[in-house]
């Protein structure tokens, strides 16, 4: 068993957890929900072990480095962070329906990493540009930010469903958290993600300056991360200055996550220094 196999298995565990959360929500059965939580915890353990094993394996290959160096490894860390943040929220807010809207994202990220034929899961040695401690700081902070935005996206989506309740009475929405809780939770996740995205962009800039002598070069990924940052800065201003709440914030949060996805995946189609993901 190597880390890639373990992470493939973890993909299915996350898939099962996501399925159980959705099942428990739709059929209003608490038992599968509890099972879902334990499945998610099991998946998180597998994901953690996979990351550590991959780290160790890279040392066996004589090219030891933290597993944060390419698209495959970033996706693994991404799904790990999403599940971790979600489990903290579940514990704090004691609501499992949020899991039905967030754990599928972690499952999709890991499934994309494990199953896509375009993604290479071999452990590669670091090219000279990546040999820097800034790599670790930069990738971790960016992906913690992205993960918080992913969860904000899931919760914003729930908000939009919930606030339509008045028009379409839907029984599925009964056990949703109250709209103001969803709104507040979205805000908290955005704020958390914004702080980490800011640090991510900053560590990237400091790194670029130590490798190429410029902290900003309008590389497509840099430009798009700045656009993403501006979308969320707009959201925060709208909320703090204009007192925007609820629906409009939810739409902005969804727009922000679209920008995140483009920064993460779309930009790889363009040439630049970040083509590794």
């Amino acid at each position, binding site marked *: 068993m190597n880390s890639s196999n373990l992470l493939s298995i973890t993909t299915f565990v996350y898939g099962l957890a996501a399925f159980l959360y959705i099942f428990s929500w739709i059929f209003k059965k608490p038992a599968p929900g509890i099972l879902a939580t334990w499945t998610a915890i099991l998946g998180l353990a597998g994901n953690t072990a996979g990351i550590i094993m991959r780290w160790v394996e890279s040392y066996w290959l004589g*090219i030891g480095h933290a597993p944060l160096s390419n698209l495959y490894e970033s996706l693994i860390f991404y799904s790990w962070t999403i599940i971790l943040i979600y489990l903290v929220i579940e514990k704090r807010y004691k609501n499992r329906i949020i899991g039905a809207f967030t754990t599928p994202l972690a499952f999709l990220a890991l499934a994309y990493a494990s199953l896509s034929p375009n993604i290479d899961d071999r452990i*590669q*040695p670091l*090219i*000279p*540009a990546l*040999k*820097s401690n800034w790599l670790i700081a930069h990738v971790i902070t960016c992906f913690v930010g992205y993960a918080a935005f992913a969860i904000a996206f899931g919760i914003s989506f729930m908000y939009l469903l919930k606030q339509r309740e008045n028009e379409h009475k839907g029984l599925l929405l009964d056990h949703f958290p109250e709209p103001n*809780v969803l709104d*507040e939770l979205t805000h*908290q996740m955005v*704020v*958390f993600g*914004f*702080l980490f995205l*800011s*640090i991510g962009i*900053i560590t990237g*800039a*400091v790194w670029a*300056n*130590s*490798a*190429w*002598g*410029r*902290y*900003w070069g*309008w590389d497509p990924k840099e430009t798009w991360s700045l656009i993403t940052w501006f979308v969320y800065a707009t959201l925060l201003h709208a909320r*703090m200055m204009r007192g925007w709440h609820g629906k409009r914030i939810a739409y902005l949060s969804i727009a922000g996550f679209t920008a995140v996805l483009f920064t993460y995946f779309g930009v790889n189609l363009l040439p630049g220094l970040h083509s590794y993901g």
Partner: protein
Amino acid sequence: MYHSWWFRFLLLLLTTNIIVCSIDRLSATWKIIFVKIPPFNISRFRNLSNKEEFKDNRSPEILKKIYEPFISKSFSYIKSEQTDKGFYIFAEKRRWTRLGVYTIHLSIVLMLLGGLIGSIFGFEGFVNIPEGEKKESIQIRNTNKIHKLDFEIRCDDFNLSFYDSGAPKEYRSSLTILENGKPVVQKDIIVNDPLHYKGINLFQSSYGVLPSKEFVINFMSKESGMNYKKKAMIGQEMKIPEDMGTFVIKDYMNSYNFMGHNIGETLIGILTPNNIDPAKIILPLRYPNFDKMRKGNFAISVADYKPRYYTGLQVTKDPGVWVVYSGFIMIIIGCFIAFFMSHQRLFIEVERGGKKCKVMVAGTSNKNKLRMKDNLKEIAKNLAGLT
């Protein structure tokens, strides 16, 4: 783009905008933030929906003695007053966190300012230095301008290494800085580990191969089967062993296209056998058996050569970088203050009512109101349990 006038103008405009906007707001906020005695409005707190209530058997006098030290442990400002039926305590903390947003805006101003300083007083250029040579002028990027440095850079050595997979592992240049011809600094630089000297930074950014000047050419005679190795210089005619004529290397090419394939670095030579017309000979460095295809009297190949590298250095000067970096640090601190810390006000009122006292705990926070609700519950629970 960095150095165009409109970019600088835009930066300046944005900077002015934030400064004007922030000063405008700050002048109002400042008075609110820096007050000796924070004002507060009792009836506003009494009417808050955000409150907790419980009953206590003890008298207001005793409760006051217990509550005050407890509250002043976690609140920086505390004030209490007697009322007709008991007393109230007003407390608050972190009023200064209202400055968090201004820290953020100021940090953005610093970053823009740093960018402006870099764009006006800095430069970004590059220079290619062959191994063993020195340069004192660099080319400014995206223009044809040459910039003369007040020192020389010598490349003593350039090395590159590869992983087994063929991916590059390391580019390393050994550089020496010379002042008036005397070496003052020596350092090996690699990607991510530049050389800083007199505010100028030298980064490893590229490399290239230069035609080497000397080659060892091997002649393999078909007749005798003998191999003859001879040193050759570009352009220098040489005699072929066994009196077979003459050979001269005409040219070195970094890449050569042979029947639609790129066969890499290649020497082009002219072979002049005795009494026969000269012929063009192609000697790809990577394929020593190439010339056997010609089926001549002897096969020629390149037995040895030493590639000469040049290192490509990015040369920059950016006196604004520390201004930008202080902006970076400030924005992180500012975001932390603005998002995770709040100005909290607490109001506790104790009223005698029959045998028991009624205790009311209310409060506001300028951010994160849900969290404040939990805080109030926690405080009420703690107060009820205090002895």
